[in-house]
């Protein structure tokens, strides 16, 4: 009887109504705006007329999108690969008998909580071409200084390194938790057959952490679409538009140029991509919420 008590609505509704009002309503509004020519050129009040699919049609002929998509794909793919590899490696390391694991784990998760906008400035200092400590180290090792701020691909790489620095701990803690839930007996049994740590990793650890890795990969992928703060504060999207991510471009179009209708259609493309990814995600984790 308790499970069906009428009081249950009192508990559920406040949160659900909040989300409906402040997320679902804006999303519907945004969809509507994407079919209008809403803009705010005179800085007072936005005015709009219905224009059908015009905005969506002009996306395909938008020349500025090329660089944006390049930067986004590079950062998404790069960050996905680098955080998964590094994070899994770190989890493997700390899955050994390491005293003080709790302290290490606290230190290693610190980057997750650093404001990305501040991280961009961290990048500005570290990656400075003449006096930055990264180039100093590279020169010390006998290399030439990298043009982090002026060469498009180097700049993208610098943003990628910062994003990797921030998000590797996320993969690390989740994969570590998955590794620690693997029963000891499996390794003991395997040890009778092989002494090779690599074989045990490939045959036991990897298959058992694979589901968690899939989950993490999808969560990371969606997060990478939101990258905006770091390139904004570090390079202002430059050099040129080399580090202007898709989210950044939508932001500039909508809230800097006030071309809100067009920006909404751009944003909706991203919403659709995110819905596809989240569908895959839910299909995978459904069982967890039984």
């Amino acid at each position: 009887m308790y499970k069906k008590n009428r009081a249950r609505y009192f508990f559920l509704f406040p949160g659900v109504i909040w989300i409906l009002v402040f997320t679902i309503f804006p999303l519907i509004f945004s969809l509507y705006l994407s079919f209008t020519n809403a803009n705010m050129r005179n800085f007072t009040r936005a005015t709009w007329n219905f224009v059908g699919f015009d905005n969506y049609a002009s996306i395909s002929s938008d020349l500025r999108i090329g660089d944006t998509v390049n930067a986004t794909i590079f950062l998404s793919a790069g960050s996905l690969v680098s955080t998964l590899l590094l994070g899994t490696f770190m989890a493997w390391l700390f899955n050994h008998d390491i005293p003080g694991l709790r302290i290490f784990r606290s230190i290693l998760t610190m980057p997750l909580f650093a404001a990305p906008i501040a991280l961009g400035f961290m990048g500005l200092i570290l990656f400075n071409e003449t006096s930055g400590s990264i180039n100093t180290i590279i020169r010390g090792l006998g290399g030439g200084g990298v043009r982090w701020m002026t060469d498009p691909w180097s700049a993208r790489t610098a943003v990628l390194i910062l994003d990797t620095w921030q998000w590797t701990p996320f993969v690390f803690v989740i994969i570590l938790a998955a590794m620690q839930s693997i029963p000891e007996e499996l390794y003991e049994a395997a040890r009778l057959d092989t002494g090779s740590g690599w074989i045990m990793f490939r045959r036991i650890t990897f298959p058992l952490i694979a589901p968690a890795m899939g989950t993490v990969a999808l969560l990371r992928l969606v997060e990478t679409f939101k990258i905006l703060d770091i390139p904004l504060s570090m390079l202002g999207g430059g050099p040129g538009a080399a580090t202007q991510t898709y989210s950044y471009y939508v932001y500039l179009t909508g809230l800097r140029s006030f071309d809100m209708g067009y920006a909404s259609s751009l944003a909706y493309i991203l919403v659709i991509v995110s819905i596809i990814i989240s569908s895959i995600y839910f299909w995978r984790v459904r069982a967890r919420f039984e």
Partner: protein
Amino acid sequence: MATTNKEAALRPSHVTSIGQSRLTRIFIWAAVIAAVIWVLYPFIWAVITSFKTQREALEPTIIPFLQFQPSLENWSAELGLGARETTLALGNSIAIAVGATIVATVLGTLTGYALARFRFGIGNRNIVSWVLSQRFLPPVATLIPFFLVLQRLQMIDTVPGLIVVNATFTLPFAILIMRDFFADFPEEIEEAALVDGANPLQIFVRVALPLATPAITAAAIICFAFAWNEYLFASVMAPKDAKPYTFLVASTSTVRGVHFGYLATRMLIAITLPVVLSLFVQRYIVRGLSLGAVKG
């Protein structure tokens, strides 16, 4: 019960402890040290830079007193008397983050409890998935409608406006952390209270809430950190009076000749509070950040 969970999560694994060669051990420790340096390096560099004057900040020196003369110039410029802009922005940041945290934690605890304890016609699983899906949405998609609506309500550049925004973005975290906590918590105590004639509200307030304090604290800290770090919406909706610290940091001159020492100081102030608070929520980080998708 909570303690056993904690122990289990931190159980040192014996995965390769047997038959581990000396070489492997050296490699592992070297890699552990490298990982710690990789994480701490930017922090340490920022701290050093913040004690340098403008000229010294352009030189790759590390050791204070020996290589450069440390100076408090940047810190006193940012936090000392007359730094009105800083005080105002920090005050706004705290007001916004605390406000959003309260809203998100209160609503999140109620909804999380509902999803863990009661059964709903639509299917609890569907509601949970729907809540989770909010995290998948790109924030830029709701930025414009939020801006237009707040503008019409004359809430642009107000603290309440940003509280609403940040509460919305952090609410899914709070709901899922609390839902997971209550779902793992035995119902027997609450059932006993029910037998004693308490109604659901009394049970929630007198029995469930006191037991949930650690989880509520964790949810609150995670919400606080995310609200504190938010920049995108703040830059659009709080350009002046309600400007939070992240926005102030971002408006530190980025043109040629920017003062690195000063920049490092501001950056450190921006990141310190959430980073320090995170040290208290270690147990909940895995679940909190994976939105309950992975048990940790």
